[in-house]
Every structure is written in C-alpha cells, then in structure tokens.
C-alpha cells in the first residue's frame, strides 16, 4: 500500500510505524501519560493528605500547570557536574537508562491486527531483555557520581532490581508457557479464545504486579530514592534537566511495564476484537489498552498515600522469600494449566 502526497509516495507501513513510534503508544502519548501520571499522583496524594498545594498554581485546570512550571524550571536550571565525577558515564548513564526504558515501545503491539514496527515471533523476550538492560545504567550513574550516598543508593538499586526482576520475568513467562507463544499479538489473540492471563494464573498476576511496583520504584518499595536515608539514591548529584530525566525514568518504566502487564495478564485490547479498518482498530484498540494500563498506573501511584517505604533488607527478603516463591508457584500452576488447556483444545 502506498500513500501519495503530491509528488511523493510514501509506503503505508512507514506511516503506521511513524504513528506507532511517535504518537500512539509512542513518544507523544508517553509524554502525556507521564505528565498526567505525575499530576494524578499529586492530586490523589493531595486528596488523601488534605494538601492545598496542587491547586495553587492553576486552579481552573486542577493545578496541572504546576508540572509545566516544574518542567521549565528543570530545563533552565544550571546543570552541575561534580568535579571528581567520571564525566562521560555520569552524563550518558541517565540518557541510556531512558533510552532502554523507551525502546520496548517499538516491540509492543497496541491494536488488533496491526503489527508493531519491529515484529518478530519473540517480541516478549526482546521486551524483557531490553527492560533488563536499563538498571545497569542506573547503577553506572550512581557509581560515576563519586558520592557515597549515590554509591550506596546504586548498590541498593542493584540488590532490589535483581530480587524483583527475576520473579517478574518468571511470572510473565509462565503466562507465555500456558499459551506457548512469545509473540505479544498472538498472546492477546489466544486470550480472546480462552481466558485472560490474570484469570488463568492469578498467582503470576499478583507476583508480577508486586514486582512492577518495586521495579518502577513505587511505594512501599520506593527505596532507592529514599530521601531521608540517602538523599536521592543514584541520582543525588544530578541537577537541572538531568534530574528531571532521572525522575521521569521510573514513570516511563511504569507506563511500559503497565502496557506489558495489560497485554500479558489483562487481555490487551480485549474485549474489542478489531475489524473496523486500520483507523478504527488503531484508535479503539489502543484506547482500550491504555485505559486498562491507566487503571494499573493509578493504583500504583495511589499507594504513595497509604504506605511508607520498606527497609532495603526487608524488601529484598520479601522479594526472594515471597514474590520469588509466588513466581515459582505460578510456573508450576502454568504447567498444570497448560496441560489441561492442551487437553481441552
């Protein structure tokens, strides 16, 4: 299919990919989602905590301008590099962490019948692999800062991420085991013919959700950035725009992880099945999936209003003793379910 614009003819696939990467699950919606998420976090926490602050700047639109103001402030603040910091890793680490947090968008399908820009039969594995790279750069940022607090903060991050990413991967893969596919689009298609992942294997859903809370630094696991303990964790020395980026990474990750969770456990764009042409499918399908992901994200940010943070050793113990065991249980559960499903089918 070619789209003709005057003298230029553009392949249709190119337009789809552009739409995918830059608009719908891509950068634009991601930016809006992150901004709205931070706004919602402030509003929800403000509601519970009887705060007036979030309403102060722009009362008519619910204080949303505060975020724009923050963004402008971060953008124009001086960016200070500590004298003894290792400059190149210090500068590139947050950028690379951000990059590896965003790249999975290219692999995540968003609508029925429309393949993501990079479509392979093992999308799921690639997304997990790319997400697993990001923490390395977070740790690098901490170590390159030459600050004891950053150093300890980055060590904590390593411990925590290892103890929660493994259960997350296992529980996601246990769903893949039921459906015997690693293709995200096919996973959703198979869920429409059977049951949603969360219903087929609730143990995996619980384990993965707890792991998401930790991986994206939500309460009660907001440990690596614990302000009263180690200032800002790996990002203690960052200022200006780089601080804003470092802050934003966890929200971007929350968005990506929520999309992944929605596809694997909550049936993606189901119950919408597609069949309304390209535009209809794209819009309705992605609206359904983003609505589901938004509920997940809102629950995640709401927890800030309820819980304090765990201590690092308690969180690690919880990761290995409870969440890891849960994920192993979910694996066994999946074996049984997959056997039964195989017999039914």
């Amino acid at each position: 299919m070619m789209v003709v614009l005057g003298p230029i003819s553009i392949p249709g696939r190119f337009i789809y990919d552009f739409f995918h990467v830059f608009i719908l699950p891509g950068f634009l919606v991601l930016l809006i989602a992150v901004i709205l998420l931070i706004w919602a976090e402030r509003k929800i926490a403000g509601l519970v905590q009887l705060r007036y602050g979030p309403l102060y700047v722009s009362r008519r639109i619910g204080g949303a301008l505060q975020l724009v103001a923050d963004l402008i402030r971060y953008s124009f603040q001086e960016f200070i590099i500590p004298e003894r910091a290792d400059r190149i890793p210090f500068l590139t680490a947050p950028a690379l962490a951000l990059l590896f947090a965003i790249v999975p968008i290219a692999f995540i399908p968003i609508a029925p019948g429309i393949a993501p820009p990079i479509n392979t039969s093992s999308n799921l594995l690639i997304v997990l692999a790319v997400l697993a790279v990001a923490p390395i750069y977070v740790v690098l940022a901490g170590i390159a800062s030459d600050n004891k607090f950053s150093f300890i903060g980055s060590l904590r991050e390593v411990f925590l991420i290892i103890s929660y990413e493994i259960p997350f991967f296992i529980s996601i893969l246990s769903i893949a085991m039921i459906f015997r596919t690693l293709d995200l689009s096919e996973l959703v298609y198979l869920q429409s013919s059977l049951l949603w992942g969360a219903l087929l294997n609730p143990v995996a859903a619980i384990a993965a959700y707890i792991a998401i809370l930790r991986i994206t630094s939500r309460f009660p696991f907001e440990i690596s950035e614990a302000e009263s303990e180690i200032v800002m964790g790996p990002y203690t020395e960052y200022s200006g725009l780089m601080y804003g980026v470092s802050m934003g990474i966890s929200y971007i990750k929350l968005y990506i992880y929520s999309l992944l969770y929605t596809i694997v456990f909550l049936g993606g764009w189901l119950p919408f099945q597609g069949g309304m042409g390209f535009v209809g499918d794209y819009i309705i399908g992605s609206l359904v999936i983003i609505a589901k992901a938004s509920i997940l994200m809102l629950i995640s940010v709401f927890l800030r209003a309820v819980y304090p943070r765990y201590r690092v050793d308690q969180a690690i113990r919880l990761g290995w003793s409870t969440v890891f065991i849960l994920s192993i249980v979910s694996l066994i559960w999946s074996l049984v379910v997959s056997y039964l499903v195989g017999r039914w089918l």
Partner: protein
Amino acid sequence: MEVEKVSEETLKEISREMFVVRDTGVKEEGERLLELQIGPAHPGSGHMRILAWVDGDIVVRCDPDIGFVHRTIEKLSENRAYIKTIPLVERPSLLDTTPMTIGYVNAVEKLMGLEVPPRARYLRTILAEITRIASHFYGIGILSIFLGHSTGYMWAFGDREIMIELATMLTGARITYAYVIPGGVRRDMPQNFPDQLEKGLRYIERRLKEWEKIFLMNPVVERRLRDIGILKPEIARIYGVTGPNLRASGVDFDVRMAEPYEAYDEIDFMIPVAEEGDAYARGLVRFKEIEQSISIIRQALKKIPDGEIISPQISRLFNPLMKKIYSESRRVKLPSLMATLKPPKGEAVARVEAGRGEALFHIVSDGSPNPYRFRFVTPSFRNVILFKYLIPGHRIADIPAIYGSLDYFPPEADR
C-alpha cells in the same frame, strides 16, 4: 528517688553488652568501613550532623554531632532582665514553648516567693497540654516523613494546626506565646474559648482513630519500627533519658506525677507506659499521651475556678490605667517595676515535663536585675546520647526511623 552510683567500668561493660542490639558480625574498626556524614544539610538529618560508619548497609558506629543552631540562651539571659528571658527560653524548643516558660517562671516565682492564683495555674496547665499535643503531632509527622509516609506527615501537621489555632485564640500568638509571666498569666481566656477547645478536642479524638488505621496498624510501619532501636530500662535510667522515650522503655516516671507543678496535682490522669522500648513503642506512647492530654484539658476546663489571673503581689502595683485594662478586658499590663525585677539573693530550681521530656531550670540570683547564672537543661540534650547507642547494629534506613522515633529536636539541644 535513690540514685545509684555506677563506676565507669561497669558503664562500659553495660554499654558493650546492652547496646549491641543485634550481633552484626562486624568489627569495630577495619578497612571495610565507609564514613557517612549525614548532615548538616541532608534531608534526613535536621539541623545536626550524624556521623555514621557503615559496613555495607549496617551502621557500625554512630556519633551525633550537635551545635549547628547555637543560641546561647543561658549566656544571653545573664545580660537581660528576668522578664525578658521568658520569650528567650521558649526559642530552643519552638514546638512546645509553654512548658519551658512555665519552668523558668516557676523558678523565678520560687526566688521571689510569688503565689500564683488557681485560675492562672489552670490556664497554664491547659496551654501546656495544648502545646504537648501540638509537639507530639510534630514528632509523629517527622517520624512519618522519615519513614516515607507522606500522608502521616501532612496529617500530623494539619492536625497540629488545630491545636496551634486554639493556643492562638488563648494567647494571641501563634508559636511563641510568652503567655506565662511571674505571678500569673498574661490574659484570661476568651468567652467562646471552651466551646472551641471542646470542638478541637473532639476533632483530634476522631482523627486519632483514623491515625490508628493509617499509621499504627499499617503493616509497613510496624515492620519498620518494631524491634528497632530497643532501649532497655536500666540503660535509660543510667543515661538520664527522659520523656516519652523513657516511658516507652517501661520506666514510669513523669515530672507531672513525681513533682506536680501548676494544677497537675488536682487532675486525675495516668502516664502511658510501654514495655518494649522499641521505636514503635515510642511512637505509641506519644499517641497515648495525646489521649491523656485531651483528658487533662477536659478536666482542667471543668474544674477551672473563677478569680484573678495575676498574683495580688503584682496586681497591687498596677496604676489606674492598668487596673482599668485588667478589669475591662482581663489583660495584664505588667508594671514597670517588673522590668527591673530584683529577686532576693539565692538559688531556685524548677523542673517541668515538656513534650519531649523533663526540662530543668536553675537560676542563681545575686540580687541584681539580671540573673547571675541561668542554667537550663533541655530534654533533647539528654536524649541525644541515644543516637550513639541505639543506632549501631542497624541499617542505614533505620537511622531516620530511630531518629524520628526519638522525637529529637536539634535546636532544643543547642541552647
């Protein structure tokens, strides 16, 4: 109370045995230690520096370094008239100012032999308890934010506001009331004050139930605070720990009971005591104290007698204008003689139970308009030693938890 003498060797031995809460397997010195200077500009340090030596995540040694908000209240007061020190003594502990002024004024009254009329004593008691509630809410708020519980922080500061508003209504000032003056109080309570106070207390009571749900029964809070920073009663006694921290270790000592001042001997109340001595118990004791303070305020409001609010020894010095103001609006304008108040030669000691513990005031007078020497021991100064002994053996994340549970207020130590 009988004071037991303890030799230094015994003390060291006890320290070695008692203060190691957990066997960490970490040696005192070694190459693995990393020195962390937490503060004086750290979000979790307050106006002080905590020097912590850590092995991995475990604190091996911890030294509190105080003195970053030096104020020299004691020295300043030696160049001032007695009456001008009243607003000074409330500066160090800005959050519960009234007990401090009561203590100082009691000492001055003892020096001068002033009798305080009963109504004034009750008014002082009511205000002291109001500030105690406000102070405890402040402490709980700080504990919450140190744990990362921002709801607790905002709620505590919001609820504290109610008590501050009430105190403002009574005294006319928001934080530093300087309400207590030698011989009485500065002014009588407004007409609608009892109603408003009752309304405020009912609100606080209602909130305490919600507090229980979100803070005390929160599983994460319990896991963060239980069995953390255990203070044993014998150690607490030896090191002179005071206030809720002492009572959370099972030592039933409160100046209001042991040596009643103002109207406390006419009021029926109890002292909450916990046995565990951990950080959770210290938080819990403060919540229970808020309940007791509410009951004290209610009783005091019920029992408060009519009558004068200033000692006749002072009111007879009033000039006609002062008398007119006093009789019309029940406000005390101090006679100019008070500016050059010359108590007789001698010494006086007074102690009070402030929000964070016992405060002791010692004035030496040489008959001149200024005190010859004024010594002032604040509860936080007596409690700061706990940093050294409670934190080692715990993790870095426990430093703010223990700090918050001690309700330590740095300026109070640096007077």
